[in-house]
């Protein structure tokens, strides 16, 4: 359907709306994940029960489909815009210093997005796929034991490093993406724009720090 | 020497002439209008507004400009504002007063009826521009704001910060493009008109060069309108754009259109001084700066202290001293001449001793920096970009520079030249400003000609025409004109001399500025004529134009323009020499009062000098259009 959109404003709208939804999801996801920081016994039961609840709630299932759609649309739209961009650029300058006028991460949303996307694939494969379709042992309450799966994976240093890199990339992606999305859908008032800009920075920071704390906390706690 | 008697000024009292004209002018029915082709050369305020207005009426318009977009015509550079007798300020303004200010400002050397019409149509222009979305300065309550300008004692100047010309031009450019969308205007950008085509003595087409491909192209029409602006660039150093030229009107002149008062060039008092040999232009700083800036020079010759260290009592605010009632707002010709006088006395400042100070310290003290920044912010920024100096902290250095051509193609009341079917509007014609143009009247004239006058007068011409067909472009007249154009370019390319067109232009400009600029003498002008002939001969023999005619070739474009300047320059000197009086911008040293003011000679020179091409550059034929003042009585123009 992206190929049918006839102009860049609508395409950017799609980018913005899917992006904003994904950002919203990041909050929910973070809230869930922060349970991993609870004392071990409590964390295990609560986290697994939480996962079980999400998997069984029809509303959540419905939203999860929206989420998958958003990921796909956001990605496909980005690829399409990338192609359009190449076409619009034509032959570029041999000596190119255009970058001095903007931030590096705003110019490299595509690269940051690719890192995040690659990470997502791994992330889905390691947790989502195994939780949904794989065999997992049950915990004391009879829920699938996702908790142990997560803890085990974060005991490996390389996995933590990979995770941190991806989250930092995501952080920069958000740093530009959140306020840019508001612009794309047409927030033009200067005051609200400065508010959004600050909120965007806070949001990116909170998400980045929030997600990074978890694997590092687990890794350090389980070094015996 | 013959007299021009038929100026087509309608009968009746001054205030009713234009209404009378409109009431009796021929009309063309809406259905028939689409059968007529009009060529408009130039897309500045005059050209774009005329092309758009005519297209709106239903005519098919072909619009030409040499720039890469119609929006870049030099009207874009006008800064200060546009005058209109709206009397929004309740300060006693009205059409008559505006007319009188303009005709007095022009030193009683313009045609009464034209000047009155200019004032009369001024109010509608503001309405039109506002409707197009021109963001004029406003009061907080939402009503239009005004400021005052040189040579008047009321506030009738409307402005859009320091970019009034740009905003007005965008208005007419947008109107033009709107007609392009409707298919009524066909726009030819990067096309330069190289000749006018006459069939049976009437203007019926042009030869243009496509500057992107070098192709010579023919365009036919029922009438041709020239809106190609002024030729102040002839002085090389001027406030004009690099591409401004006289070629279109000069080539029309050589086809029979009279040139009127070509030597009357306004030298603008507030420009940035020349700082070196390489310099290509003198940037204008809007005259509006004189509302708040005070002009002075040090009392002592060869002063070396920086301006801030020169105490008040050692400064000479010469405009305030000499013209107490107008002070720093004295008209341009007077302010320029006064500056030249100070510079010639050795009181000039700056490294080349060629400038005077324009000081804002008092205004900043009285109003605060913010108010001054709001009024002139972009000018101060521009000043800093060019000179590297912060004018909020130290005074600007300014000097006079060639700016506006009051002269141009002679036109009658209908704005038609002496060639039937050829109209000239805006700065390209000579009509409304006399010997000196008041500030903020040039945007006005361009717009009034294009929006409100030409649509009536051109229609009157078409309505009276019996031959209603567009001539075929294979008519022998086109072939002949094209051939001439090709031969000239061939000459430039095959010359293979040692100097560039720009070299010649600089020499010519210097000569003219020295001898036919702010101050003219019989001896100087006679010398200048000799020198110009010599320079012209050298130009013919020693010009270097590399490349080919059938490609982008800016050197070839320049060569054509300079060749025309070489001829026009001589006519300017002949014109200045012939006029044994001082009036407005034309100041002959032999004709001044004891106090050094201009001395007009109404008895012998109350006429416009229209020159007819004879085939011999040095022997043009003078036709005099007597200036008949039915309403005003010419007086000594005093701004004391």
């Amino acid at each position, binding site marked *: 359907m992206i190929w049918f959109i006839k102009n860049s404003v609508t395409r950017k709208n799609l980018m913005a709306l899917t992006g904003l939804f994904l950002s919203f999801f990041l909050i929910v996801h973070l809230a869930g994940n922060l349970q991993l920081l609870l004392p071990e016994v409590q964390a295990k039961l609560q986290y697994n029960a939480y996962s079980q609840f999400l998997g069984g709630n029809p509303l959540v299932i419905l939203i999860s489909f929206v989420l998958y759609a958003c990921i796909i649309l956001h990605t496909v739209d980005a690829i399409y815009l990338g192609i359009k961009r190449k076409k619009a650029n034509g032959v570029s300058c041999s000596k190119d210093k255009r970058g001095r006028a903007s931030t590096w991460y705003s110019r490299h949303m595509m690269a940051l997005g690719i890192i995040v996307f690659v990470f997502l694939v791994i992330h889905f494969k390691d947790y989502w796929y195994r939780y949904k379709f794989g065999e997992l042992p049950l915990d004391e309450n009879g829920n699938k034991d996702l908790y142990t799966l997560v803890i085990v994976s974060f005991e490996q240093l390389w996995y933590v490093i990979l995770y941190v890199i991806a989250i930092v990339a995501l952080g920069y992606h958000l740093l530009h993406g959140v306020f840019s999305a508001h612009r794309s859908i047409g927030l033009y008032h200067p005051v609200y724009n400065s508010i959004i800009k600050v909120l965007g920075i806070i949001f990116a920071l909170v998400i980045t720090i929030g997600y990074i704390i978890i694997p590092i906390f687990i890794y350090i706690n389980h070094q015996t | 020497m013959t007299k021009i008697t038929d100026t087509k000024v309608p009968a009746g009292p001054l205030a009713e002439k234009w209404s009378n004209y409109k009431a009796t002018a021929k009309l063309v029915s809406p259905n028939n209008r689409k059968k007529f082709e009009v060529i408009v050369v130039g897309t500045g305020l005059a050209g774009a507004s005329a092309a758009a207005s005519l297209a709106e009426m239903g005519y098919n318009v072909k619009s030409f400009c040499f720039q890469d977009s119609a929006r870049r015509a030099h009207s874009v550079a006008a800064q200060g504002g546009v005058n209109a007798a709206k009397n929004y300020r309740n300060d006693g303004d009205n059409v008559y007063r505006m007319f009188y200010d303009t005709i007095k400002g022009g030193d009683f050397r313009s045609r009464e009826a034209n000047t009155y019409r200019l004032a009369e149509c001024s109010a509608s222009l503001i309405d039109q521009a506002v409707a197009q979305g021109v963001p004029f300065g*406003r009061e907080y*309550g939402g009503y239009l704001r005004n400021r005052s300008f040189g040579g008047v004692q009321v506030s009738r100047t409307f402005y859009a910060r320091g970019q009034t010309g740009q905003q007005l031009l965008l208005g007419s450019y947008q109107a033009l493009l709107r007609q392009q*969308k409707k298919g009524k205007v066909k726009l030819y950008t990067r096309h330069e008109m190289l000749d006018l085509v006459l069939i049976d003595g009437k203007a019926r087409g042009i030869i243009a060069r496509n500057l992107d491909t070098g192709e010579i192209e023919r365009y036919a029409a029922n009438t041709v309108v020239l809106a190609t602006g002024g030729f102040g660039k002839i002085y090389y150093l001027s406030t004009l*754009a690099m591409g401004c030229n006289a070629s279109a009107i000069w080539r029309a002149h050589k086809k029979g259109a009279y040139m009127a008062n070509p030597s009357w060039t306004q030298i603008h008092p507030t420009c940035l001084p020349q700082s070196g040999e390489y310099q290509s232009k003198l940037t204008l700083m809007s005259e509006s700066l004189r509302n708040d800036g005070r002009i002075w020079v040090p009392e002592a010759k060869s002063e070396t202290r920086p301006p801030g260290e020169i105490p008040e009592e050692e400064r000479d605010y010469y405009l305030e001293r000499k013209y107490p009632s107008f002070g720093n707002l004295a008209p341009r010709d007077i302010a320029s001449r006064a500056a030249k006088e100070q510079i010639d006395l050795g009181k000039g400042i700056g490294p080349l001793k060629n400038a005077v100070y324009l000081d804002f310290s008092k205004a900043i003290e009285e109003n605060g920096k913010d108010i001054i920044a709001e009024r002139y912010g972009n000018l101060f920024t521009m000043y800093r970009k060019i000179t590297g100096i912060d004018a909020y902290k130290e005074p600007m250095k300014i000097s006079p520079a060639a700016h506006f051509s009051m002269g141009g193609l002679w036109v009658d009341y209908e704005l038609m030249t002496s060639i039937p079917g050829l109209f000239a509007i805006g700065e390209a014609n000579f009509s409304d400003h006399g010997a000196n143009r008041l500030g903020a009247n040039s945007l006005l004239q361009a717009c009034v000609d294009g929006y409100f006058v030409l649509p009536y007068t051109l229609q009157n011409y078409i309505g009276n025409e019996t031959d209603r067909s567009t001539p075929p472009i294979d008519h022998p007249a086109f072939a002949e004109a094209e051939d001439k154009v090709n031969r000239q370019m061939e000459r430039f390319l095959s010359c293979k001399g040692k100097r560039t067109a720009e070299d010649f232009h600089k020499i010519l400009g210097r000569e003219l500025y020295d001898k036919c600029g702010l101050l003219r003498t019989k001896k100087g002008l006679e010398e200048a004529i000799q020198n110009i002939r010599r320079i012209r001969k050298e130009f013919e023999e020693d010009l270097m134009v590399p490349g080919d005619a059938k490609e982008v070739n800016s050197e070839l474009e320049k060569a054509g323009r300079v060749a025309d300047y070489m001829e026009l320059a001589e006519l300017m000197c002949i014109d200045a020499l012939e006029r044994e009086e001082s009036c407005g911008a034309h100041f002959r040293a032999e004709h001044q009062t004891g106090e050094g003011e201009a001395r007009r000679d109404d008895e012998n020179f109350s006429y416009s000098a229209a020159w007819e091409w004879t085939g011999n550059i040095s022997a043009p034929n003078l036709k005099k259009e007597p200036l008949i003042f039915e309403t005003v009585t010419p007086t000594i123009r005093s701004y004391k």
Partner: protein
Amino acid sequence: MKIILKIWRQKNRQDKGEFCDYVLEDVTRDMSFLEMLDMLNNKLVKQGDRAVEFDHDCREGICGQCGVMINGIAHGSLKNTTTCQLHMREFKDGDTIYVEPFKASAFPVVRDLKVDRSSLDHIIVSGGYVSVDTGQAPEANNIPVTYEEAESAFDAAACIGCGACVASCKNSSAALFTGAKITHLARLPQGEKETASRTMAMVDQMEQENFGHCSNTEACQVECPENISVLTIARMNYEYNRAKILFKK
């Protein structure tokens, strides 16, 4: 001052083009960048070589005709400045300067440093005007426009159409140019009436001219000679969405 120039020379649209090296010895600090190019051309022509073709006209920063990439930056290193307002005092003795034309698919090279920017005109043609004929205008003071409205409309209207925004944009987007015109007219009661149809037409035209999308890097505002605000782009997006949702034909 000695300056080493590497200038892009290209004979016509089809030609591949290449850098040519030139050395100028007597450049002075007060020269403008374009006067330095004049100096070069004067030298080239006297040798019988083709002059470097570049666009320029008013040389006071308002016509928008000049514009080249200087060391990879549109209009050179000074922010919010046109090429003609850039002076050689910004360079040092012995500097090497790369000069290239503005590059974007929508701006094909005509020759050397000259590009064809008629695509910007086409965007205006598609709807960047108020539909008023000569003579239809009402008395100017009939519709008050507040000081703030007029000033903010002016801020957007100040665009000189030089194309530096496109050249500075990593996506070669003309969003700032288009947004500026839409905002200018939408801010005024005279222009506001047609905002919906105007915005839709202009946005579609941008696409047809092969301009890219806007990703809000904000580089355009930095290089824009008139410092046009990037918020005009957001205004365009807003007006476009509003039109798509609310506009009835």
